[in-house]
């Protein structure tokens, strides 16, 4: 009877080395390529735009939902009151630079009500966040 050699068993950790290499590569890729930002309190579909004004990312944006409701920090306020409440909010935040993340289907008059309130609070310019148009 012919006897074959048994296949040699490789040490288990040796087969893991390429896997670890790939995982490390992925890890470094995500570390370098991604940016971390706090998650939004509400889901907004940003309107598409092409102009990109160079602007540093502003902290604590004001959110405008699809149904027109405005998020000042963690408080949701109806659009008609947002103009009045935004002054207090800005005073608490200690800033006069404002970014607005508005949903593309949000009513424009809610956005303008909010912006009128900002004007009365002394803010001359706001930054609207848009997504890159395809």
């Amino acid at each position, binding site marked *: 009877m012919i006897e074959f050699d048994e296949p040699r068993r490789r*040490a288990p*950790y040796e087969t*893991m080395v390429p*896997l*670890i290499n790939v*995982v*490390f590569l*992925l*890890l470094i890729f*995500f*570390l370098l*390529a*991604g*940016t*971390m*930002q706090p998650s939004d309190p509400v889901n907004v579909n*940003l*309107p*598409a*735009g*092409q*102009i*990109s*004004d*160079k*602007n540093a990312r502003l902290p604590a944006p004001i959110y*405008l939902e699809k149904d027109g409701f405005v998020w000042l920090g963690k408080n949701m306020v109806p659009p008609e009151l947002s103009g009045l409440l935004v002054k207090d909010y800005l005073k608490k935040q200690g800033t006069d630079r404002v*970014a607005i993340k*508005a*949903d*593309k*289907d*949000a*009513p*424009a*008059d809610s*956005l*303008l*009500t909010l*912006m*009128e309130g*900002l*004007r*009365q609070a002394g*803010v*001359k*310019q*706001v*930054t*609207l*966040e*848009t*997504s*890159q148009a395809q």
Partner: protein
Amino acid sequence: MFDEPIRRRGGFSLTPLIDVVFQLLIFFMLTTSFMHSQMLTVSTPAPSQGQLPQDANVVEIWLMADGSMRVADKPVTPDKLTEAVKAALKGRTDLTVSIFAEKGSRTQAFVTAVEAARRAGATNVATAKVDKFTP
């Protein structure tokens, strides 16, 4: 005589290391975002329409409730908006472009109008909300 110290085997276990690396990998995969948003700077509107300049040096863009747009009282499609504003400006950059958003118009139309005005060369872009289109 003392015993010789026990020699540890060279091949240590990689499993805890891999566990940690996978945890880190999943963490970064879930928390990173690659969507780059852009910033569009807009002047805040005057509290009432009456405070906007009403003279001849104004080009008006109207955003209608049904999603249509009008420039200088003529209906325009959103993709032709920049050309229409440019034509209405006639090469002058000192004119003010006023954007009136009718009740019911959407933010996307507003952003499109602001960008069209800026691309047409306008330096002053005013905005206001109105209840109903008044030609």
